[in-house]
């Protein structure tokens, strides 16, 4: 069983479209995260949810909206996609100040 799964793995879309990335974890952790890794491999946190509640919201454009329907899922919806949104998006989970488990990533390409 994969601990943290993401779908899709690859996403190619045109500017202006709206898309969603899904994340599911089976570790029972309270906290889930979304990270963005740019073309230079720099990994930066975007959002964090704890028990379905938003606790970290970095300076991310409001075109990005995370949604947590339950503790095991954290989805990322992106409106009006721009070229600069092209990156790899990672979902992660953790429990308190301990290691975080990362998903396999979703490579988003906006053309």
């Amino acid at each position, binding site marked *: 069983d994969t601990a943290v799964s993401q779908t899709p793995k690859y996403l190619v879309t045109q500017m202006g479209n709206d898309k969603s990335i899904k994340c599911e974890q089976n570790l029972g952790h309270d906290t889930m995260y979304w990270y963005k890794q740019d073309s230079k491999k720099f990994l930066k946190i975007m959002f964090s949810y704890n028990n379905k509640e938003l606790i970290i919201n970095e300076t991310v454009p409001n075109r990005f909206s995370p949604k947590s329907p339950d503790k095991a899922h954290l989805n990322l919806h992106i409106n009006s996609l721009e070229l600069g949104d092209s990156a790899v998006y990672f979902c992660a989970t953790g429990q308190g100040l301990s290691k*975080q488990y990362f998903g396999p990533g979703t490579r988003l390409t906006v053309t």
Partner: protein
Amino acid sequence: EDQVTQSPEALRLQEGESSSLNCSYTVSGLRGLFWYRQDPGKGPEFLFTLYSAGEEKEKERLKATLTKKESFLHITAPKPEDSATYLCAVSQGGSEKLVFGKGTKLTVNP
């Protein structure tokens, strides 16, 4: 202002040639320093957490150490399968947020 700086950006070693990767940080109230390994096309994989200066942790050929300003990841007699990007991250204050460095890409040639 960078809070986590990793050096070198890239490192090439011959198999068996030991070396160290550096992670310096400027955060106050460090709660934890984390090392991750990332293989191409995959998510980061946890290696170590260090919580206080003087702490050391080991796993196979890897050893992580921590001072008040920096952490080192020592690689002893590396093998080609150790080739990966090694990421350092810190957590500070009351936050569980991890702030990552830009990583060191390690290549070990046979």
